């Protein structure tokens, strides 16, 4: 059992959890994730490790209520427990030094980008960050990202906050102005695809983090297989970070929809069962 130490909403549908995981906390590195289960009949889902406190023995997870499992997690409060949390999993981010790196985060992907941005900053790089979302209430971790960056730009699709437009518009401005050594992009697959397509034109190496469907997360099921430069890789153990210019995004976008019908069924049942608790979250998701 893993006890939730604290829970804090970053937006109406996104919450930050600090969870007691004494074995995982001291081993976490930027880029790692954990697999959690929220209930005894629950599925195993991967969640990025945003932060950890080795002294306190806690890890930080930031979760957006989208499917049944994430919605159920967001009904949990400080003091509640989840049955399973295992990690750290995946390859940590390789760290460079003395480079200019653009870190691009989209939506809740900013939570996954934050630990990488911090690690890159701490290892002595110049960091230009771009954080984007559909609208103002989905912009998260702005202050944390600003603190980890030399410069930060914020965009929203609807212009309700920061600059109106996409993160790629802002990225293009940077690329037209100077040539960074690398780009890190984490967010929805279409956003990472668009970033990778743009940076390819400018010849800037780009790393993306792929959230494929997983069962075990340790290389056992092969459900998370992705095509990288035409070769089969497992996102859980070979990744989750890959060269964005080599990723077959279209294939992954389709593969991630394999279980949409089932997910909707789970979601519908959960919403009915937890009508009150889920009402608020589901309204915002729609």
């Amino acid at each position: 059992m893993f006890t939730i130490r604290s829970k804090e909403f970053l937006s109406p549908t996104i919450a930050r959890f600090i969870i007691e995981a004494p074995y995982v906390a001291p081993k976490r590195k930027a880029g790692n994730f954990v697999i959690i289960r929220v209930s005894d009949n629950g599925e195993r889902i991967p969640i990025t490790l945003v932060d950890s406190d080795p002294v306190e023995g806690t890890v930080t997870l930031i979760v957006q209520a989208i499917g049944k499992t994430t919605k159920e997690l967001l009904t949990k409060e400080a003091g509640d427990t989840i049955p399973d949390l295992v990690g750290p999993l995946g390859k940590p981010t390789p760290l460079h030094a003395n480079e200019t790196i653009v870190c691009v985060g989209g939506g809740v992907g900013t939570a996954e980008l934050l630990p990488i941005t911090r690690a890159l900053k701490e290892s002595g790089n110049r960091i230009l960050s771009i954080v984007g979302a559909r609208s103002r209430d989905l912009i998260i971790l702005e202050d944390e990202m600003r603190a980890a960056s030399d410069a930060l730009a914020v965009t929203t699709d609807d212009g309700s906050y920061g600059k109106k437009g996409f993160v790629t518009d802002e990225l293009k401005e940077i690329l037209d102005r100077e040539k960074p050594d690398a780009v890190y992009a984490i967010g929805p697959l279409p956003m990472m695809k668009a970033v990778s397509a743009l940076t390819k034109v400018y010849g800037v190496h780009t790393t993306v983090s792929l959230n494929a469907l997983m069962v075990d997360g340790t290389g056992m099921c092969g459900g998370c297989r992705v095509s990288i430069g035409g070769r089969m890789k497992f996102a859980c153990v070979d990744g989750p970070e890959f060269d964005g210019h080599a990723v077959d995004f279209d294939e992954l976008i389709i593969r991630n929809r394999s279980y949409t019908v089932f997910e909707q069924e789970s979601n519908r049942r959960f919403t009915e069962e937890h009508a009150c608790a889920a009402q608020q979250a589901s309204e915002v998701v729609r």
Partner: protein
Amino acid sequence: MSAINPLKPSQRMKIPREHAPERPALERNGDFVEVSLGFTSDQAVVEATRCLECTDPVCTTGCPVNIDIRSFIQLVMQRDFVGAARKIRESNYLPAICGRVCPQESQCEAVCTLGKKHEPVAIGKLERFVADYEMTNKLFVPPARTERRQEKVAVVGSGPSGLTCAAVLAQRGYSVSVFEALHAVGGVLRYGIPEFRLPRTVLDEEVDRVKGLGVEIQTNFVVGMTATVDELMDTWGYAAVYLATGAGTPHFMSIPGENLIGVFSANEFLTRVNLMRAYAFPQVDTPVRLGKRVAVVGGGNTAMDAVRTSRRLGAERAYLVYRRSRQEMPAREEEIHHAEEEGIEFLMLTSPVKIVDNGRHEVQGMICQKMALGEPDSSGRRSPIPIEGSEFTLDVETVIMAIGQSPNPVIQATTPGLKTGKKGTVAVGEKQETSRPGVFAGGDVSRGGATVILAMRDGKTAAAAIEEHLLSKAREVVEEAKASL
């Protein structure tokens, strides 16, 4: 023990082999309840009287863990079923499991003297009967522990090999911790073998007995990631480590279309169903997406498990596609037989060449090629050769690849100085020792894909070697202390 059966051998040979009742195929295709109901006590006694009580019991040498089969069968004959179970437990810690999943027809029963002219004694079914009898009647008494030892031993993986090693060492007085990556205990017995072959109540009970010996099991712990082998030894204070992480990395064929939706590794498919209980969706959260027509590629027990599971999940046509012929299939005879009864369609001497896209990145069919058998290969089996122009398309929406697994590389990659062997296995010597002092390995991680019983044998061998290693280290300490006086 001398012979106790009053019947003459010629009379015993006239008794036909008992057959355990099985649930009808149509009934069992609708659920995940066990196929074989096992012997009744009367059946068990009759079957036991068939044993010739050979003075040189070859069955014991045919058993990878050398169970004293003759003695346990004599106890069955005398209706001392609990005594029989205890006799087995002297050599095998998980008899209710072995009685169900061992390939007896190629081990103990293959060498049974009675089997030369008649059908061999049903040793497997007798083993299962006495283990179940002990379990059902709650007559299990944990074996006495020898003296308490100071040293702690870490066992990595809670499959058959790890559980066996842990049980032996705990009984020898060591503090044993088992580290399991998944959230549930049992390894391949949990995620791989379906409930219709090994009911979860049986597995849970056997696991509880190992825990009852004082073994501590830490789930959600990936050795290599949560802690490395060196950290377990240097920081956590484990004096020895047994690596029993199995062969968990699934193989694919490298043919076009393997990333289409509807293609699974057998590992993923079976893990969804067995570990995550996807058959109960939406009561549980993990689904499994299965078409009405399913092809499983492979000829081993995993392939049988996957194809029979597909049938139970509602597949109208379930094909088993294997590149050699039925004789070369490595699966247990009983499973092949059950699969045939359950309406599985066997496509022998057939190999996939391409999986066809329906235009929406989903499986529409599988193009296969017919094969002919050539000369025997290194495994002794005749190797398949493609027949040109024999391609045909199999109409399926789901393809499950059950063509083998190799060890997960995480421990090999994070343990400096750990030598590896063929196909990513951990290299071991006769006593399961690795290139790193104090680190032992066995089961599929060193074999690359074998049976439950061989994994258990390795676990036993390693436990003995670990005890020897720790005792000799303790002696060194004493001698050094003496020398320094």
